[in-house]
């Protein structure tokens, strides 16, 4: 009961608009094999497999864990499939870690993916049933009004979103796995790109990607590999109702509760000072300042000042999304796990060109649905 859990291996695929070179199983296997290699273990060392992805309609395969059992080396083992909307990549990792924490398994392989090119996410998101408001404008159309509300509340200047978009794409140039490598990214280029969901411009929005991310999570006595692991010091999931009078969709309570819980578990009282790097789920530029407040990195109404001052840049005092984030790669179901994996890579010193010196405490964050689902973790270099 309540065993310590570490991330001992991470694996990512190259993210791209269309990975036509691999099947769905091939894509997932690419990430899984890399995670096993990173942990210096083989398929036989894995006790159970936990996979996650966003809606099955994104590929047209119902409950794909059944089809993926062989490719994930799960035959004869327990296999689970998590789906908690956009936060699923994070939740999947936490379900896997939970199996180890409970003392049930020693090593669990966890993998999350999306192969968006197999279907059309906008179509899938636009499906509706009777008596329910249609969501025909995609995720950006859903979030834009909340962003406008944030700008009105905080009096943030208009250029903040553009700064985030430029910063994350510049970070992505240092990440070989990132989908978008926009060599000529600039403030002007983002500012001049088409306005699609006011105030979100085209280049302030995430791409639609194919990709998979996998991790090996292990118990203390089963840590393997040449590289020191990243330890889970705090894990939490929180959900709130989608729609009700009085729900604050700009600074949702579930996000605040989830953050407080992981900080409590990890013994963090001042997140901006104590966390060295964070991978935060920012699919649309303005969500960086919004989450800075929701996660208590900045007082309410002042998150945009962190972006404006360069604090969230890779060389700032609170680097956010050194990998380039969701704005640079978005295989939806995997995006949350990529945040965890990138946070682990920062701890383990394996982030290459986007490595930040001396990271001892990092945060992974994912959110989903209409910003009512949250999954977060605090990872540390030192055993908690």
């Amino acid at each position, binding site marked *: *009961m*309540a065993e310590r859990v570490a991330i001992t291996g991470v694996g990512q695929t190259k993210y791209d608009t269309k990975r036509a070179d691999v099947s*769905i199983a091939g894509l997932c296997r690419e990430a899984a094999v890399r995670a096993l290699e990173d942990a210096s273990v083989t398929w036989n060392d894995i*006790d*159970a497999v936990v996979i996650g992805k966003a*809606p*099955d*309609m994104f*590929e*047209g*395969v*119902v*409950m*794909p*864990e*059944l*089809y*993926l*059992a*062989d490719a994930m080396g799960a*035959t*004869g*083992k*327990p*296999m*689970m*499939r*998590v*789906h*908690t*909307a956009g936060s699923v990549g994070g*939740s999947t990792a*936490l*379900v896997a870690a*939970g199996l180890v*924490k*409970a*003392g*049930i*398994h*020693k090593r669990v392989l966890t993998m999350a993916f999306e192969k968006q090119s*197999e279907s059309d996410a906008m179509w*899938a*998101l636009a*499906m*509706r*049933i009777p008596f*329910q408001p249609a969501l025909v404008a995609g995720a950006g159309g859903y979030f834009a009004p909340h962003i406008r509300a944030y700008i009105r509340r905080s009096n943030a200047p208009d250029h903040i979103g553009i700064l985030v978009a430029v910063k994350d794409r510049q970070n992505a140039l240092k990440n070989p796995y990132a989908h978008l490598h926009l060599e000529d990214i600039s403030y002007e280029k983002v500012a001049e790109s088409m306005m699609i969901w006011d105030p979100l411009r085209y280049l302030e929005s995430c791409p639609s990607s194919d990709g998979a991310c996998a991790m090996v999570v292990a118990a203390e006595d089963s840590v393997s590999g040449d590289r020191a692991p990243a330890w889970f010091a705090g894990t939490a*999931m*929180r*959900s*709130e*109702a*989608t729609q*009700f009078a009085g729900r604050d969709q700009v600074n949702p*309570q579930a996000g605040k*509760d989830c953050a407080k819980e992981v900080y409590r578990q990890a013994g963090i009282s001042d997140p901006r000072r104590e966390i060295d790097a964070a991978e935060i789920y920012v699919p649309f530029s303005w969500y960086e300042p919004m989450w800075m407040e929701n996660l208590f990195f900045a007082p309410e109404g002042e998150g945009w000042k962190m972006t404006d001052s360069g604090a969230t840049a890779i060389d700032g005092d609170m680097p956010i999304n050194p990998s380039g984030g969701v704005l640079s790669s978005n295989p939806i179901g995997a995006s949350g796990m990529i945040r965890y994996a990138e946070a682990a890579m920062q701890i383990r010193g394996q982030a290459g060109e986007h490595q930040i010196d001396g990271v001892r405490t990092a945060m992974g964050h994912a959110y989903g*649905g*209409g910003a009512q*689902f949250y999954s977060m973790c605090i990872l540390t270099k030192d055993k908690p």
Partner: protein
Amino acid sequence: MVLRATGKAGSPFAAVLGRRPVRTISASGAAAYLGEAMRDVAIVATAQSPALRKEERRNEVEILMPVIHELRENAKLDQDDIGFTVSGSCDYLQGQPFAFVTALDAIGPWPPIDESHVEMDGAWALYEAWVRLQHGDIDTALVYSFGKSSPGDIRRILTLQLDPYYLVPMWPDPVALAALQARALLESDGVSEKDMAEVVARSRKHAKDNPNAQLKGDVDVDQLLNEPMYLSPLRKHDCPPITDGAAAVILAAGDKAREITDRPAWIRGIDHRIEPHSLGVRDLTDSPSTRKAGEVAGVGSGKVDVAELYAPFSHQEIILRRALGLGDGVNVNPSGGALAANAVMVAGLLRVIEAAQRIMDGSADRAVAHATSGPALQQNLVAVLEGE
């Protein structure tokens, strides 16, 4: 009929597992499991909707709400008293992405709750809740599951579970694959169409005592055998009905469970395993994943009074009984099982509920619950429940 306790040596599946037999049972996991390390967790309250062929007037949330209310009332708990909430459902049944999102409204998640969802039968949601309770920081969990099969074409939907490149283009639907499996079983050894009809007759008879069942009544085996073939060798009654429904459970740990109810149904073991997806490498007449899960869950370590097996097709009950080593003395599917009502995504959790009910009402001391997922019993979960 001959009940076989062990798998056929040299089956393709054994070959797949054979490379590392000890490891695949998760030596580490099984050891922790069967030892004293696990926290005692019990089912303390259950609720279910009536199984209906077509819930025309109520959507999924509306079916769920009375079930959740009844459940909390049974346990005398509010949502504030619940440590963890988890559900199981399938977007494709509802015909829209994120179907579980609106279903969460049935819970009333405010203030925010610790919550998760599996795109699997509710039995796997129950497994996740059991794991979560092992962490030791919370004492209660609420599990629910829902599914309306009636609005869509369930046979086509479940076909989309198959390998999208090599199998789906041929559209072998679940009934066709079950027929293949039944044919293999009939041609393998000692199982006859009469054995299958007997499963159906008993299910319908048992269902007479289940107010929530859909198909019930006294049917004659010879009469059943005179029915025309549907998809040879399956007759229509060998196949499950189409059902809409929902079910929910509250789990509690240790003394909390004893506080809530006089006779909790203790989960003494629970495990699940998956087999290869490729039908060509499986022995369809056997269920090695059920056997393995049953071994880890500890089915064989005591007398089994009642077993609730999720066998959507009549011949699958025969395969499952063999895999679990259940003899003639075991009361199998007193609820009527999936041949009497089969709300996809709910039916597995319902087997656990029905088994738990027999423990909670004192009519059984030790029960086995089983759930399945995927074509021709690809993935299976087994739980052992006991009274105190």
